[in-house]
């Protein structure tokens, strides 16, 4: 055995070993000779006096240009609201009825962003303000020009919130979404704490506000991934401009994405790290073409055994971030069905490649989802497991979700094709960005993060919404990669800046067109909401109130007190085959809105006035009476007794 202990015993003697004797040569005192053990250090030139401060180039016109354009955009919005003729909505949706003031506001907002970006010294507060104005003028345009929140589902979810607000208990047997009740409970609590009885104003302004919060998350993510002072803002604008998915209405997934972006920002920001081998063993893929490749098993072993580097943060800050991230992961589990899986998938990928510290967060997220689903969602999976595992009828859900929606008049079809083209272009841009990112940082993880949500395709039973969710959950990373591609393009050819500025204006105009494409039948007027509330209040509890079609604010209240109809094959809504479905369902009350009429005309290409004609038929049959009518808004109540179902005189004494 060979000892390698070369420590001195302390008495001036060296250990009596034959190997590796430590040097005993000491420098003679008083002789100040330079060591020769190291390469000679060239004397560095003495730093001279500090250079005079460089005069910063004046901002010139950029000092005022962006604020003026932003102010102009905001000032034009009320004019836009006053000059938009909502009664002329057709298959082209909101874009066709918007007045010049609305488009000018959008152009000014884009100009404000671009002007500040072109400034010699972009000001973060001004960029943030311009981004807010841009969101208000694009995503928020419907909130500005329409008198109430559009989108049926937002009103339905407000109804869920209303149902839970009374006693704090989610209604059972109503809707599968009630098994993930955190969002509804949260807003019910807000509502009760605020002393409000409804959330109409919240619903109206929810989309621009939540998109602004998302944009903050994208900016923070992009700052970590791209660096620089301009590219992160471009990433945020790309995200807003490419996000036609419209899951920013009052919904659990909107809040879920806020939580997802928070965790992702932590993971790729302050918790970001890299797994590096102290011995200099290259990882996979090889960082450079000429790097030697080691055996695969060795690389895996090195990767698995090498702990990620420690972020350069004080321990207490790290712990605070862990706590906040864990809180977000715990909060998202009972709030939405899919979002937890998106963030878990992305965290698992980051953990496997050693890109963040705090892998216990993956465990926390997994435990939260599994325990919540198995225990709190027991009634759901005991009765509706096929919703998760899928069934034979669900196999074509994705195809139906895309192909089945390509219907309607010319405007509808064009808008829907644009909805397919835009994600395709987004992916093309992102792949170009992934290539740029790879060349710069030898890193493929970001594109992997965008691919992870595609695993949702395994749960096709979720329905056609799945395609939208896959695009949405990947969009933050896609937008950031796209910004990297555009930055590389501009660095290559400065003249492209003008082209990209024009492209930004076109992108946001297209966004308004695509997002507002369904507004002919997604628009909601305050009188519709008042009508729905009145009908629900006047109808005895337990009776059926069924909308002619699933548009309009029919579910704003009464979710847990009135039935919304039963499941009848081919009659997912009465308007599918009105006479047959109404015969089969025979609801106590039928309610219809202007939106129902519009949907039939622009989407199902029914003749104008079809809904009123149907009302007249039902009244003529003697089975229903009209209790309210104002234009295309109508309420029909079942006559008692039913003249068709009970034609025989009752037997005396029976």
């Amino acid at each position, binding site marked *: 055995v060979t000892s390698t202990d070369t420590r001195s015993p302390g008495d001036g003697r060296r250990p009596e070993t034959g190997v590796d004797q430590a040097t005993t040569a000491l420098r003679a005192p008083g002789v100040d000779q330079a060591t020769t053990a190291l390469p000679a250090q060239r004397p560095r030139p003495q730093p001279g006096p500090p250079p005079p401060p460089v005069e910063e180039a004046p901002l010139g016109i950029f000092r005022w240009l962006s604020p003026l354009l932003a102010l102009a955009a905001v000032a034009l919005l009320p004019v836009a609201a006053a000059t938009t003729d909502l009664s002329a909505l057709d298959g082209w949706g909101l874009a066709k009825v918007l007045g010049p003031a609305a488009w000018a506001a959008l152009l000014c907002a884009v100009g404000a962003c671009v002007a500040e970006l072109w400034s010699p010294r972009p000001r973060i507060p001004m960029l943030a303000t311009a981004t807010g104005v841009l969101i208000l003028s694009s995503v928020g345009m419907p909130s500005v020009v329409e008198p109430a929140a559009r989108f049926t589902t937002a009103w339905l979810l407000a109804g869920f919130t209303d149902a839970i607000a009374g006693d704090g208990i989610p209604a059972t*047997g109503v809707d599968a979404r009630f098994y993930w009740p955190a969002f509804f409970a949260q807003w019910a609590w807000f509502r009760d704490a605020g002393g409000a009885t409804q959330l109409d104003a919240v619903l109206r302004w929810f989309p621009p506000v939540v998109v602004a919060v998302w944009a903050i998350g994208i900016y923070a993510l992009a700052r970590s991934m791209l660096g620089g002072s301009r590219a992160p803002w471009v990433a945020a604008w790309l995200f807003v401009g490419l996000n036609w998915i419209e899951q920013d*209405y009052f919904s659990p997934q909107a809040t879920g994405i806020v939580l997802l972006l928070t965790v992702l920002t932590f993971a790729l920001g302050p918790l970001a790290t890299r797994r590096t081998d102290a011995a200099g063993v290259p990882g996979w893929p090889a960082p450079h073409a000429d790097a030697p490749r080691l055996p695969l098993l060795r690389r895996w072993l090195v990767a698995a055994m090498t702990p990620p580097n420690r972020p350069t943060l004080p321990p207490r800050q790290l712990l605070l971030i*862990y706590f906040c991230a864990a809180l977000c992961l715990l909060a998202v589990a009972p709030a939405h069905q899919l979002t937890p899986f998106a963030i878990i998938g992305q965290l698992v990928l980051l953990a496997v490649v050693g890109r963040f510290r*705090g892998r216990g967060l993956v465990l926390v997220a997994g435990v939260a989802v599994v325990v919540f689903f198995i225990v709190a969602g027991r009634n759901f*999976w005991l*009765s509706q497991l096929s919703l998760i595992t899928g069934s034979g009828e669900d196999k074509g859900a994705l195809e139906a979700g895309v192909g089945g929606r390509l219907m309607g008049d010319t405007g509808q079809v064009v808008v829907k094709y644009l909805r397919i083209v835009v994600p395709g272009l987004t992916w093309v841009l992102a792949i170009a960005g992934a290539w740029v990112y790879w060349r710069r940082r030898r890193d493929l993880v970001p594109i992997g993060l965008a691919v992870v949500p595609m695993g949702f395709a395994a749960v096709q039973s979720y329905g056609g919404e799945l395609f939208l969710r896959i695009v949405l959950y990947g969009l933050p990373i896609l937008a950031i990669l796209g910004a990297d591609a555009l930055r590389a393009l501009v660095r290559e050819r400065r003249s492209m800046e003008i082209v990209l500025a024009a492209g930004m204006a076109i992108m946001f105009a297209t966004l308004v067109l695509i997002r507002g494409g369904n507004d002919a039948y997604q628009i909601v007027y305050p009188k519709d909401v008042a009508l729905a509330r009145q009908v629900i209040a006047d109808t005895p509890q337990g009776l059926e109130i069924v909308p002619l079609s699933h548009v309009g604010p029919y579910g704003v209240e009464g979710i847990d007190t009135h039935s919304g109809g039963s499941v009848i094959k081919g009659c997912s809504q009465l308007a599918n085959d009105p006479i047959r479905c109404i015969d089969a369902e025979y609801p106590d009350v039928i309610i219809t809105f202007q939106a129902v009429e519009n949907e039939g005309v622009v989407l199902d290409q029914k003749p104008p006035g079809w809904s009123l004609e149907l009302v007249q038929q039902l009244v003529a049959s003697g089975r229903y009476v009209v209790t309210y009518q104002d234009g295309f808004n109508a309420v029909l109540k079942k006559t008692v007794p039913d003249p068709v179902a009970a034609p025989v005189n009752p037997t005396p004494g029976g």
Partner: protein
Amino acid sequence: VFNPALDVWIWITCLALLGVLGARAWVVETGQGRLGRTPAKVQVLTAASAGVLVLLVVLVAVQGGALLVNSILTGTDPLVAGSAGAPVDPAAVDPAAVPVDPNAPAAPAGG
């Protein structure tokens, strides 16, 4: 058989797991770690985390997890599978809890 009344133990175990994981994170991040050596406190807390996690897995499995996994793997209805093997406690299933709309998670088109 799973008894919903025992669910409270699952939640308690969850809280315990979070507590142990938090304590471990505290010790790991605030400790002056030395390369190549895991402090004894961390080892103890890691073992405790693993123990609580195993306990949680067992409890969840007993309280329905095993039935769910079995139903997914065999493609059977959990109620049928539960009644064929270990019968499901009728009190555990709310008869009114069946969603009326089988496509309920699929919200109307997002635009």
